[in-house]
């Protein structure tokens, strides 16, 4: 634990001995359910403890043995130019990762390793999620040391004069969430996903239920059933029942939202250090990610329909390294614009200036969109109003259907009218801005220099009406500005290409 990694390079090391215990516990956790299933499935559990205890003991011994062997056979070394990792019992694998290919060193603690104070170190090379090099389970101090060592080597490669970085260096706190903020965030993350899960589970385990829950008659029978108690309860009681049901829904939704948020973002801290932005979060699985500022390709500022009314926004950065499955890292999950502004400044980006010249999408694009969303509904309304009664449908159903469809068509057309006032894009000397959406607008900010390619796309309608979509290739994402006049698209492309071509990819400024 006190071992200083920078002091003894070029020396094979093993992960912490505790890690084999952690590994055994983790694989035991995976083995328990299949083992139980096997016991139940073969009917062996009927034999009683005589069979169960030895079986479980054998499984435990096996996993412990394999974890131990895996631990014995795993070793790693910090070389002058690369990290080498060797592992495998029968199939030995030796991998070398040059320091300059390492985009990011992330530390992760799931629940079990965390109980033992162990950390999972992941070296992200940008090569793709599965093939990343991991050193599983070293002590927290060793993990920090590994990260520092990689940073120090990268610094040396880049010609920086920093000899050996101190393990813990002063960081500037950019953003943190206290519990109150977390709870507020959770309220806005209101989610009824648990009902979807329940419905799915009900479908899976249908055979266990006393009756077919999709059978409407059965429900009626059950509710109105023997004694017809619900029917007899009267209107007032039925209304109270309905209110209670809604209240339960709301409570479950709130609880789900808060639980998920707390689990994910507990103890959220974003700090600025000399190596980039450092984010720590998580209740059960604690993760610690450093995002080098010069690898930030673009920013996404987003909000929600309701939370926007209260001034809450979220900020993500798009970078080469990938966060779980999404191509971007959340750096401010839930904050006010005043809290977000310093974070944006720290990434070297800026919000659009107040006097920036916003440009709007083409009018014919809006008109086409409005027609596309409204015309099918109007046709539907006509069909419902005129044709349905002739085909023998009840006439009292036709009128509401017609009115409803017409109203929906009106709303969708109106939405396009509002979007024409909200969708906009702009260009300044360093960045491209694209704002999209009416009720929950989002703003994408990309650095002009870091764009990879520029494409102008036109469908058949767009070609006729003279508008186009402009799509930029961004490392780790993409940025699209839709429905702008063709001349505008060409002008932006020309300007952006001028600034891209002037600087080579390998020399992008840090």
């Amino acid at each position, binding site marked *: 634990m006190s071992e200083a990694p920078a002091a003894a390079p070029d020396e094979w090391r093993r992960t912490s001995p505790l890690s084999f215990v952690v590994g055994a516990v983790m694989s035991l956790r995976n083995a328990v359910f299949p083992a139980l299933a096997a016991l139940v499935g073969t009917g062996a559990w009927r034999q009683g403890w005589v069979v169960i205890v030895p079986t479980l003991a054998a499984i435990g011994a096996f996993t412990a043995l394999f974890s131990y062997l895996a631990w014995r056979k795993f070793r790693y070394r910090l070389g002058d130019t690369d990290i080498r990792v060797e592992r495998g019992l029968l199939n030995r694998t030796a991998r070398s990762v040059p320091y300059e290919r390492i985009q990011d060193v992330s530390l992760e603690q799931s629940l079990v390793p965390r109980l033992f104070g162990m950390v999972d170190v992941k070296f992200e090379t940008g090569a793709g999620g599965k093939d990343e090099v991991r050193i599983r389970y070293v002590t927290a101090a060793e993990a920090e040391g590994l990260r520092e060592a990689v940073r120090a080597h990268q610094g040396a490669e880049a010609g920086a004069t920093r000899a050996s970085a101190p393990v813990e260096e002063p960081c500037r706190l950019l953003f943190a969430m206290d519990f109150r903020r977390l709870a507020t965030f959770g309220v806005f993350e209101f989610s009824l996903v648990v009902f979807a899960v329940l419905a799915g589970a009900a479908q899976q385990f249908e055979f266990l239920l006393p009756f077919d829950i999709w059978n409407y008659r059965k429900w009626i029978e059950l509710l109105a059933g023997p004694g017809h108690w619900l029917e007899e309860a009267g209107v007032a009681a039925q209304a109270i029942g309905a209110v209670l049901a809604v209240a339960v829904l709301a409570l479950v939704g709130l609880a789900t939202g808060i639980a998920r948020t707390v689990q994910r973002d507990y103890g959220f801290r974003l700090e600025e250090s000399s190596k980039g932005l450092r984010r720590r979060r998580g209740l059960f699985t604690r993760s610690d990610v450093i995002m080098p500022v010069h690898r930030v390709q673009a920013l996404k500022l987003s909000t929600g329909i309701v939370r926007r009314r209260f001034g809450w926004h979220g900020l993500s950065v798009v970078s080469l390294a990938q966060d779980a499955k999404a191509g971007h890292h959340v750096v401010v999950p839930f904050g006010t614009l005043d809290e977000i502004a310093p974070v944006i400044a720290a990434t070297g980006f800026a919000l659009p200036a107040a006097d920036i010249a916003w440009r709007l999408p083409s009018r014919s694009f809006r008109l086409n969109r409005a027609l596309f969303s409204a015309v099918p509904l109007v046709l539907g309304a006509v069909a419902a109003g005129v044709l349905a009664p002739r085909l023998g449908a009840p006439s009292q159903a036709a009128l509401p259907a017609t009115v409803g469809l017409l109203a929906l068509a009106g709303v969708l057309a109106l939405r396009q009218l509002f979007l024409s006032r909200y969708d906009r894009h702009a260009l300044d000397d360093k960045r491209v801005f694209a704002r999209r959406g009416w009720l929950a607008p989002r703003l994408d900010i990309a650095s002009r220099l870091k764009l990879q390619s520029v494409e102008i796309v036109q469908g058949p309608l767009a070609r006729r009406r003279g508008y186009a979509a402009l799509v*930029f290739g961004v490392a*780790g994402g993409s940025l699209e500005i839709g429905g702008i006049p063709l001349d505008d698209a060409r002008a932006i492309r020309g300007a952006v290409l001028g600034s891209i071509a002037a600087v080579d990819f390998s020399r992008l400024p840090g």
Partner: protein
Amino acid sequence: MDEDEALTPLHPNYVKVVRLTSLLFAAPLVIAALILEATGVLPRGAFLVPVLLLAMWLVIRAPLRRYQARGYQLGDDRLRVVRGLVFNADTVVPFGRVQHIDVHQGPLERAYGLGTLVLHTAGNHNASVALPGVAHDDALAMREAIRAHVKRETM
């Protein structure tokens, strides 16, 4: 690079390659239609004639239109690729953003001396931009030119 500048058309052999590919696609359809015709389930020609017309359009007309819709422009520091008959895409890749370059050649392309130049960038959108239907030697020359440019810029 100006949009007004004329695009370089692809190699004329590209039409032949696309026609052969379309033929391979259309042949099973025509055979199926012939079999259906032979069984006499449908009125004579009710299915066969439209299928034949479609196949002829696919093999004769469409490849030519596609060829006319495609083109490229090789600038000093960027490559512009235009493609698409119905959905038109006009992509520009600056050489400074090229990560690596492939020259691909399928069996049909080889028979006609063509090649496909593929530029790979770090972007998620347009991670690889392909330019099919150039003479294989031209593709190789373009690759060398782009690589020389990349190297010069990096050193």
